[in-house]
């Protein structure tokens, strides 16, 4: 039976839905490459971010390839493969806003709900700071553009992708390295699948498939 893989669908360029209603993006291509390597049939399922981990735990699917950060909290609930890329956070704001990373506690800052960036932002501004949480990253971009918020804490690659069409905005300061590693989540009792995925991951890196996919999206190998 096919391997069921969940992804999100609102996190370009890693995953998004095109006009034909198909989920496409880096995550999907990686997932497909992994499946090919494992010689298994795959089924890609789009889930809302909010329910993506409970869905895995409840056996709605077998793995999550959705640019998910490996965190201690998540490790309580699920297992992760080895990382398939490293993520950094960035602060996005309008050009010439004069904001600094240290000063975000004083502003209205946005982030995607239930993401590594929201956890980090929350630590910075405190539980009662003006942190606006969005169901999707795209929604937070919309609000930044509209001027409802001063800045966004975002993952690095999606931010770069978005900045391509939004020249009025920029990354504030340096990218923030919080040692964030992105992995594939599997159920805790599913060590077999985790190991198989790890082997396959090594395989596609070794045979250059990974590099080819990555260059297609980002111009470089992000592994």
């Amino acid at each position: 039976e096919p391997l069921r893989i969940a992804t999100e669908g609102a996190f370009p360029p890693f995953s998004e839905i095109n006009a034909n209603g198909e989920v496409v993006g880096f995550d999907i291509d990686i997932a497909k490459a992994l499946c090919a390597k494992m010689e298994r049939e795959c089924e890609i399922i789009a889930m809302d971010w909010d329910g993506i981990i409970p869905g895995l735990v409840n056996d709605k699917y077998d793995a999550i390839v959705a640019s998910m950060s490996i965190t201690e909290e998540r490790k309580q609930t699920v297992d992760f493969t080895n990382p398939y890329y490293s993520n950094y956070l960035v602060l996005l704001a309008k050009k010439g806003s004069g904001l600094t990373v240290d000063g975000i506690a004083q502003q209205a800052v946005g982030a995607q709900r239930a993401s590594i960036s929201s956890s980090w932002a929350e630590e910075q501004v405190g539980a009662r700071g003006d942190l606006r949480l969005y169901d999707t990253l795209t929604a937070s971009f919309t609000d930044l553009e509209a001027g409802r918020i001063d800045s966004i804490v975002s993952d690095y690659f999606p931010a770069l992708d978005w900045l391509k069409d939004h020249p009025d905005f920029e990354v504030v300061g340096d990218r923030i390295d919080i040692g964030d590693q992105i992995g594939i989540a599997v159920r805790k009792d599913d060590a077999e699948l985790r190991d198989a995925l790890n082997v396959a991951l090594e395989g596609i890196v070794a045979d250059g498939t990974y590099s080819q996919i990555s260059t297609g999206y980002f111009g470089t190998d992000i592994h």
Partner: protein
Amino acid sequence: MELLGFGAEGWGDDLLRGAALTVQLAVVSLAIGLTFGMFLALAKLSRFAPLRWFAQGYTLFIRGVPEFLILLLAFFGTEKAVAAGAALLGLEGGIEVPKFAAAVGGLSAIFAAYGCEVIRGAWLAVPNGQIEAGHSVGLSRWQIFYRIRLPQLWRIALPGLGNLWLVMLKDTSLAAVLAIDELLRVAKVAGEVTRQPLMFLLAAGAIYLLLTAISDKMRASFEARANRGMAR
């Protein structure tokens, strides 16, 4: 505007598919919810106190908790509950609840909780004399129920049930949290992909209004049928 068209580039066909799914969800949930609601109403009217308490507790809970939480619980909670129940009986395993079934389960659970109040009210609104007349000619309890009570109850309950139907038609949009591609989720995705959220939300709103108008028409014709013989 092309974005609303059909074909590969347009989202029109996706929106229509979403609308069809919305209607499907609502219709199936209506059928199940109505049946369950009838039983709840009977429970509330029962002389057996524990049944009444159960029905009261159930409606209190459903009416008290946000719908979208109920859907989440239906999706994630039922399997846990079934598994736990099975374990209690010493059995292995459980069931898998597909998303559509979970949404139907949640929506019909909600419909039943509200519908039972409408049905109960209608039950009581059937004039007692009508029932007594049945007794006095020797009809049995069951005959009185389905020959006299039910047809009249239906007539009285229709407007209230019609309102609940409209509420449910809109509540199907909550199934989006289960990532079911009903109308609203399609509109939301399309809006994000095309960067035209307003247009697609308006389009979805217009489709909901259309569905509402059709429902109202159908309800009116049902009511006209049920009211035949009634003074205006």
